[in-house]
């Protein structure tokens, strides 16, 4: 009897700890999203609908790349970890661009600084200038604390399949692309 009760308590404690862990992981840092709710759809739609200038000054929205596997990276030139992961994104854009993957950077920054940075790094994917409005947009898709870098991956149907606060590792991106391609 005591053993049965012990096992029951252990299972309950385990389930609780796991659910707390997964919930924290999902909400705070990154994770694959198994399902989506109505509010999440709306949030993704606000991401697709937001219009921002590109480096040439043309108003653009992410809707321009609907149907692609989209990697949307919120970043800024003043953010060191953001700068560190961009060379990886350039390589992966080169490697997977022909297969339907499209990286887009949304900069919480000023156009002149982003242009300088883009030229220096020879960024091969579109950059949109969001200024601090970019941080509000990132909040809509789960970046509660507005820290950077923050990246979301959307599948060809515009579903949010991954979000990441902090650097998104190459291996993780390859594994996501492997599932979506």
């Amino acid at each position, binding site marked *: 009897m*005591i053993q049965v009760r*012990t096992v029951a*308590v*252990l299972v309950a*404690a*385990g389930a609780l*700890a*796991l659910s*707390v*862990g*997964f919930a*924290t*992981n999902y909400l*705070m*840092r*990154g994770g694959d999203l198994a399902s989506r709710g109505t509010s999440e759809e709306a949030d993704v739609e606000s991401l697709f609908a937001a219009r921002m200038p590109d480096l040439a000054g043309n108003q653009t929205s992410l809707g321009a790349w609907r149907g692609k596997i989209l990697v949307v990276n919120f970043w*800024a030139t*003043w*953010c*060191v*970890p*953001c*700068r*560190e992961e961009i060379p990886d994104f350039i390589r992966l854009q080169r490697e997977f661009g022909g297969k339907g993957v499209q990286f887009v950077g949304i900069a*919480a920054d000023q156009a002149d600084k982003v242009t300088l940075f883009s030229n220096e790094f020879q960024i091969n994917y579109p950059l949109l200038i969001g200024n*601090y409005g970019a*941080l509000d947009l990132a909040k809509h898709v789960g970046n509660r*604390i*507005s*820290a*950077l*870098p923050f990246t979301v991956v959307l599948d060809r149907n515009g579903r949010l399949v991954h979000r990441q*606060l*902090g*650097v998104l590792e190459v291996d993780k991106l390859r594994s996501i692309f492997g599932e979506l391609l």
Partner: protein
Amino acid sequence: MFARHFFSLAGLVLAAIPAYGQDLLDPEIAFRATARLVRPDLIEVRYQTAPGYYLYRDRLSYVLEPAEAVLGKPKLPAGKTKHDEFFGKQVIYRNLSIVTLPVAAAVDTPLTLTADLQGCADLGVCYPPVRRKFTLSLSAAPAK
């Protein structure tokens, strides 16, 4: 027996939770700042960062109002040097750091100090620049 089983399994389960699941703090909690007028001609700003968070010295800035109250050159603590491949050597502040600001032309209080700051977490994220405003007057409690 019961307790031993409970804690050993609970420990195993907790260890399986990814380390990055820990919460990142709101910037207001990660980077606390208070300011007070020590004398009519001297302001003290105290920064307190949470463990695992730091502020960049060169991204601290100050504006004092009204305009007749001219700010002198801030006296900044030494801090620590952090090296990164993009910005080179950067001075950062952790824990408690105290900056003093001379007021070149003392005027009647209250004064309004606008202080901008920007910092990052060791976990590998940076927070956007934030602006804090303090209303300062003599013999008042520190403004938060």
